[in-house]
C-alpha cells in the first residue's frame, strides 16, 4: 500500500511484522471485557482491614404516589431501607459508612441512574462506592413492594451491580438485608451475614424464654415459653431448628425445637443433668454433657437414634461444654481434670485428648471458628471478671478480645467467621453484643434495649 524504495526493504519487513502484531493486539483488545466486576474492592484476607468508604442514600419513591397510607408512610420506607443498609454495613466491619448529613446531593434532587446525578457530588466527600435506589408499593392494599437498587463505583463512574426485587411489603427488612448481603458479596467476594439469625434466652426471675432475632435486633420471635428454665440454645446445621436444654420435665434435658413446629422433641431422658447440646456441621452427631453415670461426661448421639449414647470422656472430673470443629473431626471441651476448668480438644471418638489452655485458673465456653483456625473461649480473670479470648487449635497465639468491667460470656461465631457475638453483663443488665474479630472497634449491642438477653447462638447461613 505504501511505495517503498528497495533501500527500505529490510526495514519494511520489520515494520510490517510490527504493524501486523499491533493490529492483532488491537483486535484482541476489542474482544477482551473491560476490567469491571472482577475487581476486588475489599480484600477481606488483608491482615489490616482498611474500611471501605461507602454512602447509602435513602431510597426514593418511584411510584405514582398511590401507595397505602399517607405520603409519610411512603417516605418512611425509603428512609427505613437506607437505615437498614447503613446499619448492616456498619456492623459488618468492612466499611466506613458516610453519614447522610455530609451528602452534598439533596434527597430528591437527582435520580438513581447514571446520567441522572453527578458523580462529583460523591467523589468530593470521599466515598468510593455509592448505593442508590428506589421503591414502589403496589398491589391490593399496598401489600407488594418493588425495590430497585444500584451500586456504583464512584471513582470509575460506573455501575457495579443493579437489581430489582419484588416481594411483599411486610418482607421489607428481609429484602434490605438480602441487598446488603449481595452488595457485600460484590465488593468483598464473600456473602454477608444479614439474613442469618441469633437465638438467645431472655432470663426472667424464675423462668427463661427462648427467642430468635435478626442480626440488627429486629424481628424478635419467642419460640419457647413454658414457665420453665430453658437455656443453652444452639442451632441445627441447616438452620431449621434449635437444640436447647429445658427443665420442663423436671431435670434438665435436651430438646430440639424445629422452627416450623411449636412442640419441641425431647432427645434425652436420663437422671441427672443433660445439657449443652451441639450438633456437628455434618449433621450426623449431637454432643452434650450428661451426669447420669455419676459425674458430668460428654456423650454423643445420632439424631435419628437418640437412645443410643456413645460416651466420649472417661474421667472423675467435670467434662462439659463440647464444641465441634468445622470438619467434625474434633471436639473442644471443658474439663477440670487438672484441678480447675481448662479447655481441651479431643477426636470425635474421645481419643487424643490434649490440653489447650494454660493461662489462669478458669477457662471455659469454647467455640470453634467456621474456618477451623481459632477457638474463642471465656477466661475468668483474677478479679473474677469474665473476658473473651481466642487461641489457635494448637494452643498458640493466645489473644484477649474483651476487657474492662462487666462479664462477657458464651462467644458464638458468625458463619463467615468475621464476627463474634456474646452476652455481656454489666451491673446485672444482660445484653448481646458483637465484636469484629479483626480490627479494634468497640463491641456493638445488637439485642433490643428493653429485653434482657444472654446465651446467644449464631445461625448458619439460612439462604
Amino acid at each position, binding site marked *: 500500500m*505504501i511505495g517503498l*524504495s528497495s*533501500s*527500505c526493504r529490510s*526495514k519494511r519487513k520489520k*515494520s510490517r511484522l510490527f*504493524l501486523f502484531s*499491533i*493490529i492483532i493486539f*488491537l483486535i484482541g*483488545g*476489542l474482544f477482551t471485557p*473491560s476490567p469491571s466486576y472482577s475487581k476486588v474492592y475489599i480484600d477481606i484476607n488483608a491482615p489490616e482491614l482498611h474500611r471501605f468508604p461507602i454512602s447509602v442514600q435513602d431510597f426514593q419513591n418511584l411510584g405514582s404516589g398511590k401507595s397505602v397510607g399517607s405520603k409519610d408512610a411512603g417516605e418512611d420506607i425509603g428512609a427505613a431501607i437506607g437505615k437498614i443498609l447503613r446499619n448492616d454495613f456498619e456492623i459488618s466491619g468492612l466499611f466506613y459508612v458516610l453519614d447522610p448529613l455530609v451528602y452534598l446531593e439533596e434527597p430528591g434532587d437527582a435520580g438513581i*441512574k*447514571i446520567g441522572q446525578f453527578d458523580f462529583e457530588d460523591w467523589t468530593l466527600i470521599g466515598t468510593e462506592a455509592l448505593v442508590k435506589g428506589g421503591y414502589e408499593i403496589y398491589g391490593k392494599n399496598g401489600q407488594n413492594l418493588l425495590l430497585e437498587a444500584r451500586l456504583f463505583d464512584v471513582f470509575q463512574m*460506573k*455501575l457495579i*451491580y*443493579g437489581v*430489582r*426485587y*419484588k*416481594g*411483599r411489603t*411486610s418482607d421489607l427488612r*428481609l429484602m434490605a438485608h438480602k441487598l446488603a448481603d449481595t452488595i457485600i458479596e460484590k465488593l468483598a467476594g464473600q456473602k454477608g451475614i444479614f439474613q442469618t439469625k441469633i437465638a438467645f434466652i431472655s432470663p426472667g*426471675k424464675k423462668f427463661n424464654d427462648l427467642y*430468635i432475632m435478626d442480626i440488627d435486633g429486629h424481628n424478635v*420471635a*419467642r*419460640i419457647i*415459653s*413454658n*414457665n*420453665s*428454665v430453658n*437455656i*443453652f440454645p444452639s442451632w441445627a446445621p441447616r438452620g431449621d431448628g434449635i437444640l436447647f436444654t429445658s*427443665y420442663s420435665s*423436671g431435670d*434438665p434435658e435436651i430438646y430440639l425445637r424445629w*422452627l*416450623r*413446629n*411449636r412442640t419441641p422433641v425431647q432427645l434425652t431422658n436420663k437422671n*441427672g*443433668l443433660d445439657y449443652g447440646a451441639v450438633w456437628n456441621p455434618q449433621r450426623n452427631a449431637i454432643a452434650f454433657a450428661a*451426669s447420669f453415670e455419676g459425674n458430668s461426661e460428654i456423650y454423643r448421639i445420632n439424631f435419628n437414634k437418640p437412645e443410643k449414647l456413645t460416651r466420649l470422656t472417661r474421667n472423675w472430673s*467435670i467434662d*462439659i*461444654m463440647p464444641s465441634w470443629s468445622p470438619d467434625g473431626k474434633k471436639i473442644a471441651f*471443658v474439663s477440670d481434670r487438672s484441678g480447675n476448668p481448662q479447655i481441651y480438644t479431643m477426636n470425635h471418638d474421645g481419643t487424643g485428648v490434649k490440653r489447650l489452655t494454660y493461662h489462669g485458673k*478458669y477457662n*471455659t*465456653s469454647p467455640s470453634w471458628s467456621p474456618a477451623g483456625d481459632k477457638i474463642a473461649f471465656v477466661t*475468668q480473670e483474677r478479679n473474677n471478671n*469474665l473476658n473473651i479470648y481466642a487461641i489457635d487449635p494448637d494452643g498458640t497465639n493466645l489473644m484477649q478480645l474483651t476487657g474492662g468491667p462487666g*462479664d462477657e*460470656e458464651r462467644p458464638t461465631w458468625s458463619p463467615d467467621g468475621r464476627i463474634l457475638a456474646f452476652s455481656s453483663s454489666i451491673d*446485672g443488665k444482660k445484653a448481646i453484643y458483637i465484636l469484629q474479630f479483626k480490627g479494634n472497634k468497640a463491641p456493638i449491642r445488637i439485642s433490643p434495649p428493653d429485653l434482657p438477653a444472654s446465651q446467644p447462638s449464631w445461625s448458619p447461613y439460612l439462604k
Partner: protein
Amino acid sequence: MRRFFMRTSSLKCVLLWTMIFLLAISIVGCKKKQIRGEEETGMMTEEAIPGEPVVEAEPAAGEELPVVERKLIGTAVAGKTWISDTAALYTIYFDFDKSDLKPEAKKTLRQNAAVLIENNNVKVRVEGHCDERGTEEYNLALGERRALSTYKYLKALGVKSDQLMIISYGESRPEDPGHSEAAWNKNRRAQFTVISQ
C-alpha cells in the same frame, strides 16, 4: 536520491503509525461508551423474593400459659423449707467455687437428716445453686457438685436414698438477685424442695 526516498518512507511510516494510533484510541473509546450503555440496559436483573420462612412462634407475652413443671409443694423460702406443719429443712451455704461442706453446713445437715428420717414418707429434691460469677454452663456442673456432696452426707447419716433426688440450677435461680458479696453469699447454696408423689 536514496536519502530522499528514505526520508519519504520514514515520514510515511510515521503517518502510518499515527493513523493506527488514532484508530486504536477510537476503538477503545467506542468500546467504553458501548459498555456503559450496556450497563444501563442489560445490567438490571430481577428477583422475586419469597417471604420469610415460616417460624411458629409462641404467643406474645401476657397470655396465660399452663404450668408444665410438676407442682412443687414446700419450696425454700428465706432459707427454710417446710415439709409439714411442724418440720422444716434448712438451706446450707458454700464458699466461692467450692462444693465441699463447711462445718456449719454439716451441723445443719445433721438436723435435716433427723427430720427426714422421722418423716420418711417425704421425698425431697436437693437443689444446687451458684452465684452469678463464672460461666453459666460451668455453674450448672458446680451446682450439681454441691447437690451431690449434700446428698452423700445425708445418705451417710442414714437418710434413705429413695427419699432424695438431686438437681442443679446453676446461676439461673438466685435467692438474691443483687450483685453484691452479700447477695452472692446467699446464692451459693443447696436447698430442699418437697416433691409431690
